[in-house]
């Protein structure tokens, strides 16, 4: 995919204190307002913590049910490289 560097770059950004609250609230609103978003996934990179490695792969969560990032006990704290990604209806069709 073009501009893959941005994926890594975004994962490396320090998270705001309210990262999970704010991101999941936005997705919840997006689904409620019938946008093209249908759920949220957790993007887990290779250098994530043990707890993140335990997350099941390929799961699409509803915003209220998504694990909160950074995961409890993540040693990297706000530098946690896991990120939420919106899951779009068109992306699901393409897959």
């Amino acid at each position, binding site marked *: *995919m*073009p*501009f893959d*560097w*941005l*994926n890594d*770059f*975004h994962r490396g*950004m320090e998270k705001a204190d309210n990262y999970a609250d*704010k*991101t999941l*609230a*936005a*997705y919840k*609103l*997006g689904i409620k*307002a*019938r*946008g*093209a*978003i249908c759920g949220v996934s957790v*993007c887990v990179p290779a250098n994530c913590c043990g707890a993140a490695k335990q997350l099941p792969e390929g799961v699409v969560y509803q915003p209220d049910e998504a694990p909160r990032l950074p995961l409890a006990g993540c040693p990297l704290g706000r530098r946690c490289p896991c*990120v939420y*990604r*919106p899951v*779009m209806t*068109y*992306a699901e069709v*393409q897959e």
Partner: protein
Amino acid sequence: MKSMLGVLARIPLFQLYRRFGWPRMLPINITLSPSPRCNSRCLTCNIWMKRENELTLDEWDKVLRSLGKAPYWFTVSGGEPFMYQGVVELCQMAYQYCRPGIINIPTNSILSTIPDKVRRIAESCPESRLIINLSLDGIGEKHDRIRGVPGNFKKFEERLKQLLELRDGLPNLTLGIHSVVSTFSVGHLDEIMEYADQSGVDQFITEIAEPRVELDTVGLPITPDKKSYTKAINKLIDHVNNRPYKGISKVTEAFRIQYYKLVKRILDEEKQVIPCYAGWASSHIYADGTVWPCCVRADQLGNLRDHNYDFGAIWFGEKIKEVRRSIAAKECHCPLANASYTNLLHDLPTLARVGTKVLLPVLGGRPTAPKAPAKEPEAAHV
């Protein structure tokens, strides 16, 4: 209008600033996003889901005052800029303190209040060129599907007609059609091009859909593949090349062709093809007062609320140094149009190509004769 010569005079200074950190300069190109709220539901953008603790007009007043006369080009972005209740006042403040040469506002054309707000901005900012770009991603239902709003195309046409009428009485108003070339629209770009040609607008511009942190589109499959984009954009380049532009339009269209070629190279080479001046000559102020070098990376350089609304305190601060190092080291690359046009202006080979294209027929070189009759466009602006 504020002179473009002042911008050209600052080019070598920005080149020095980027290379040696001196002389310290405020940006000439600033995007203001007063609110992420939007009444579109585009497939290529998720900003409309966001809610922010937005800067008030009083806070914007202090921010814009701190910029002084440095900015030449403001883009008022969103969300949908005309959903922001204070959009007229925001532009008036930018005009009062900064006297920009250009105020550029994209719009989805949905709100019926748009023409009145455009008129008020144009009338109260007479020495600035006001550019209103109406978004168009397809004709008829194709547009509605991509924008996620049934009936959007009908409203686009209503607003277009109203704004064209308005333009007749407002000499500083330029109208454009802006199209995002995405995986959803790349197949019908020629239809949009044909429509724009007949529409009566002053300019037709396109931008490739790229992932941005700002829009929460990182990792989404919205960017067309290199082959499809090249095929579509080559038609557009031919189209622009075959039109008989005159005066300033000739220069802006020459830059536009350079931008389209740059995008092709960036897609092909996947690197920063020419030096990026985001973080030096261009910047972005987000709704909550956060300053970014650009909306693609959206590095949080600082929040204006924490710096007494003084833009310079962030721009000349410590945190931006690492971001500038990263950009200069080409750790990023993107075809963001707003930054790219500023970058092209600072790239000497590009300036030489544009100069050659503009001057060659004048100096007796091969004329760029039109292959098909075309309406003479009015002065267009990048």
